[in-house]
């Protein structure tokens, strides 16, 4: 139960960060938090012995893969942020709303 509370709290915290922070780097960080919460839930449920744990090691492997993907994503994301910062001289997301229809 506490596992659910913690992961939902973490997930909401990440979402909240995405929605209210204007800075691209902060948003990227918030996404990492959300990813982390999801991974934590996955691994936590497997450890708690729910039916998910029947395939031994599969869940843990998935968790590790998500972490690796998150690292890769962070690398690409930060690279994009740098290129955006170079081009637009800002990393504030509300100033980047150029696709006005």
């Amino acid at each position, binding site marked *: 139960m506490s596992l659910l509370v913690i992961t939902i709290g973490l997930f909401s915290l990440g979402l909240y960060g*995405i929605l209210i922070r204007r800075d691209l780097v902060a948003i990227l960080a918030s996404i990492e938090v959300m990813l982390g919460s999801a991974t934590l839930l996955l691994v936590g449920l497997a450890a708690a012995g729910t039916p998910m744990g029947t395939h031994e090691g599969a869940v843990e492997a998935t968790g590790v893969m998500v972490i690796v993907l998150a690292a890769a994503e962070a690398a690409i994301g930060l690279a994009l942020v740098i290129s955006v910062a170079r081009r637009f001289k800002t990393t504030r997301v509300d100033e980047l709303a150029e696709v006005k229809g």
Partner: protein
Amino acid sequence: MAAFLDLGWSVVLLPLLLAVLVAVFGRVLGRSIPVVAIVAPLWVFVYGVLSVLDGVHDLSRAGSVEWLTAAGAGSLTVGWAVDGLTAVMLVVVGLVASLVVLFSVGYLHGESGLPRYFASLCLFTAAMSMLVVADGLVGLFIGWELVGACSYLLIGFWFTRPAAAKAAVKAFLTTRVGDVGLLLALALLWREVGDLSYAGVFAAAPSLAPATVTGASLLLLVGAIGKSAQFPLQIWLPDAMEGPTPVSALIHAATMVAAGVFLIARTWPLFSLSSDALAMTLAVGGLTAIGAAAAALVQTDIKKVLAYSTISQLGFMFAALGVGAWGAAVFHLVTHAAFKALLFLGSGSVIHGSGTQELEEMGGLFRKMPVTGVTWLIGAGALAGLPPLAGFFSKDEILHDVALAEPVWAILLFGASLMTAFYVARTTRLAFFDTYRGNGHPHEGGWSMRLPLIALATLAAAIGFAATWLAETLGTHHGSLDLRVAAGSTLLAALGLLAGWKVSGVDHTGSMQPRMATLASLMREGWGADRLVERVLLAPVASASQFLYRFVDRKAVDGIAEGTAPFARRVGRAFSSLQSGDAQWYATMLGAGAVALLAVVSYVGRGL
């Protein structure tokens, strides 16, 4: 000669061929169109005369081909058969049509559209011959519909005149009501008999259920009423006068409108088995005879007088059919064809010469147009029933037969005869006597117009004496002249002529006394039948159409069709405001959507 007469189809096919020829090569033929066109009715006339002389007066001279075969339901044949009645009709059709073609040469001189006109006349001749020589109801029906189509084409000859175009449509649609009756009669007989040839139907008629015979006869009567402009479908004939006058003489006086009488005479073995249908025929004929005669009393247009007169005379024929005297009806058909075609062509000559149809603008034409005047007097005398002209004999025979069978209706017909004499005298005096009231220069037409008048006048004077011979040809009995009826009707005719002469001397317009004005104007409009049809039939249809147009078509159908583009534009504009480019706004929507989806899924799936 017998082998020659075996070419029964030629009276249909030759005119049809000539119609196509005139229509296609009209421009090439130019002035010789009438020369080509007149061959068609002349051939019909010659064939008819030879058939009469040949003396084969049952339906034995015949030929037919199988037309349609329906699996398990027998087959339809179309064929021709010539008996006395057919031969007489062919003579009438061929003769009047030939004279009308001749008359048209002078009457329509210099008009445009002559190839169309003469091609239509040839087509009409073909259709009328088909109607007459068919050996069964299928062939008759084909001819029946085609003469209606030709009538439409020829009434609308001057189709640029709105009145003519309207009259053509009206004639077509009104007769169509009757045609539905005829078609239903065919369907009924097909179901009950399984054969639509006259021979087959007549052979089966005595063994049919009485209700079937009466039903079929009444449906045939409906068809006859429509074609012959009898009450209550008489409204189209006065309007049909918008067509060229020679057409009125041929189609709307002598031949097509008489097809109803021919139909009943032809299917006589069926009609004679149903006393109800006969009583109905008598009632229709009697009412039409007197109603139309009354309407003719006060017309101001010379052709309208003749139109109502035609309706009235056809009423006489129907009355004769209603008391079983089909021979008398056909006799009157023949004499009427002669003298009414004469009167119509005479009125055409008058219209051509004086340039007007209004009786008010005529007068004194007898001196200026002597040939027309003399021939008109002969035709008028025949119509009024003066001895020894043609109309006297045939009308006398009808009155005699009706008086023997149904004295009450005979009184009505005597009344109609009196009115006939009255309007004949009135029209004659207004057009031909006293002083000229118009402001043109009336003149006689050329020889092509005078010759048909003289030929028809000769017939109108002499044909009455052929009664016995005609009865032999038809195979009916011709009674000797009934002196009491003859004396009575002659007296009535003289009385009517005298009264009509006197009254029209006092009052040209026929409005009579002021207190009679309302009645007179009602009669002038044909008893308001047109207005009744307009109110009862046309107005509801028109307002329903208006409603459908305004609300269903304009608002609903057009609204949906025309509304799609603005709708799409409005929706697009509404959603484009969501596309702000603000990534966080998107994320918010995404989150809200996910939450909403979760809520829905957990709500729907709560029981699982």
